[in-house]
């Protein structure tokens, strides 16, 4: 594996499978009464958040703490830090504090890449979502969730070969979509993105996926359908006429879910806009994995931190009883 995780394209097929397998091990620890491993004792993980995301931050925090790392939460949002050079100054501060890994969430695409390649810090950089670029750990937890649900027992070591995954929503502005398209493709899945043409980027023809504007045509051929959060404000920039029309053409409701194959699952990275991209009926159905994805997020992020910082020895052999 590379030293940083900036993009899903940083991961080879074997890297990705290794992370998913490691996450399985980590997931088993979560079932124990003491949910902690000593693996990263004495290491420091900094959560550097330039953008609010309590969900992602606490997921990384829980993951680091379960590996016994020291966690520093650094929220740059709302402080005096908002102009450009602050990323550099903040990085130099973190370097001085001896950060072994920096988990960064930033509103600008490319900020984690810049942090990793500018020479400002020495530790590993994990992208926790940058602008409209990527969110690789979200894609990993999605892949993990798909593998667990669809392959059930004996999933370890397997990829997603032949699985048909549909991603629906604001593809243009979605870092979740960008990371998922690459990662799921790397794992052998057939990916289709579905959106109104206004929310599909120019240049999508070079992505390793199919593009459709017709949700109903794609649903019967999907093993998993991932619904992306669609911001209501996009309407004001004329990406679509009204919320109602969006929900009617691209939202997932009970009728549409019924046209999916029996085994197919519904996914959502959260937080959901109920009534917009997903109805309450679908969101609360047992086919919807949204809550599971949150749980799986901690396991996957443990695996990532462990593999980036912990080295090669098996993760779960040494159990702690402190």
């Amino acid at each position, binding site marked *: 594996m590379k030293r940083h995780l900036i993009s899903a394209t940083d991961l080879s097929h074997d890297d990705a499978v290794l992370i998913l397998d490691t996450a399985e091990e980590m997931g088993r620890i979560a079932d124990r009464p003491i949910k902690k491993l000593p693996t990263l004792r004495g290491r420091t993980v900094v959560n550097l958040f330039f953008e609010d995301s309590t969900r992602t931050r606490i997921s990384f925090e829980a993951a680091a703490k379960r590996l016994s790392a020291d966690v520093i939460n650094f929220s740059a949002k709302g402080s005096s830090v908002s102009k450009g050079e602050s990323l550099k100054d903040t990085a130099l501060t973190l370097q001085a504090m001896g950060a072994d890994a920096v988990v960064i969430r930033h509103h600008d*695409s*490319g900020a984690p890449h810049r942090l990793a390649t500018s020479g400002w810090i020495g530790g590993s950089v994990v992208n926790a979502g940058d602008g409209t670029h990527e969110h690789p750990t979200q894609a990993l937890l999605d892949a993990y969730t798909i593998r667990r649900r669809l392959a059930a027992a004996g999933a370890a070591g397997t990829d997603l070969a032949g699985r048909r995954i549909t991603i629906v929503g604001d593809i243009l502005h979605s870092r979740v979509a960008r990371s998922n398209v690459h990662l799921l493709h790397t794992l052998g899945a057939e990916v289709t993105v579905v959106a109104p043409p206004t929310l599909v980027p120019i*240049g999508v023809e070079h992505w390793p996926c199919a593009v459709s504007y017709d949700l109903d045509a794609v649903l019967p051929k999907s093993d998993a359908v991932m619904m992306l959060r669609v911001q209501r404000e996009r309407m004001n920039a004329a990406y679509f006429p009204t919320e109602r029309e969006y929900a009617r053409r691209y939202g997932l409701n009970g009728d549409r879910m019924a046209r999916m194959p029996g085994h197919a699952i519904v996914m959502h990275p959260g937080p959901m806009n109920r009534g917009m991209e997903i109805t309450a009926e679908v969101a609360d159905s047992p086919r919807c994995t949204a809550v599971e994805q949150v749980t799986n997020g901690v396991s996957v992020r443990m695996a990532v931190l462990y593999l980036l910082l912990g080295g090669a020895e098996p993760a779960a052999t040494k159990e702690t009883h402190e």
Partner: protein
Amino acid sequence: MSETATPRRTLIKGAKILGGRPQDVLVENGTIAEIGSGLPAAGATVIEADGRILLPGLVDLHTHLREPGREDSETVLTGTRAAAAGGYTAVHAMANTFPVADTAGVVEQVWRLGRESGYCDVQPIGAVTVGLGGKQLAELGAMHDSAAGVTVFSDDGKCVDDAVIMRRALEYVKAFDGVVAQHAQEPRLTEGAQMNEGTVSAELGLTGWPAVAEESIIARDILLAAHVGSRLHICHLSTAGSVELVRWAKSKGWRVTAEVTPHHLLLTDELVRSYDPVYKVNPPLRTETDVLALREALADGTIDIVATDHAPHPHEDKDCEWGAAAMGMIGLETALSVVQHTMVDTGLMDWAKVADRMAYAPAAIGRLAGHGRPVAVGEPANLTLVDPAYRSLVDPAGFVSRSRNTPYKGRELPGRVTHTFLRGRATVTDGNLT
């Protein structure tokens, strides 16, 4: 640098004028006195050109000198020194200073600072609208009538997007043979835009800057200029589609001229994959297809000139994440090398065409007297001597400009300006400023 230290006679021996056969050129009292073989060296400072190329002093139609207002990135003095080092004897200073060059007072201030620098003539460009606001015409006539004698007007950095304001500006400057230089960027289509819209932007998740945002304004302005019979100059063309539009306008005989920057002749948006803001520029770096179309257009004359769009920024404005970084790159000291690399060494142009695209034509568009003249007896001795065989890696530490935001750091480029003469006085000798 002082007048008295400069000898009155200089003999340049064995120079290939515009790449022709080696000849001697005698410069006397600021003028080219004699051209021939075996000219007597008596009383003259002798420069052994040794087969190097002699060009007319280069003229830049698009330079950001940053003074007044942003002297932390460049001043008229540091900018003109950089220009001289790059072989320029005249630059047109863009109007987006603080305060904006939208009054006779500001353009005269810049003009005076240029005269005091002594390294290169500075011809101020006046803003088209007050404060570059796009709403109200600046006092174009007053700027023209001032000591600065402004004939080129531009809101560069901002597009004159209101069609009526653009029409009026085009018409108004006809009274004094002025020209409006448009920064073609449809503002609504480029809200939040960060890079060329295409394959790379889709992957990088950076807001796209579509080619159509440039081309739609160019198309409109060509039609406006044709309608009112005015001169239109289009700044920094960056797309193959823009080339087609200008080609069409010229085929109609309309008075449209266009420029291309050195960086758009060489660099593509693939470089943005590094997220290094040194590649962030307006208009953005485009694709290989665009680069090749721009080169072809410069060679066949569809694009009239090379203009640097030299845009200095302090280190901290580029030492940050992409979204927070300033747009622009410096170019005065590397322009000729990039043109040699992309146009001459590729066989697309000879040195005579370089002289046209980088000296004659820009001076003609700017109606700039005394520059962009042939290397001929009786002409002002604004001259640039180039060693085309020289090869070096670009090292920003060696730049004369106050800023270092070059996209060519570490890149091998050919050619070096060894001497620059401004009205017979050397501003650069043996590659060093005097």
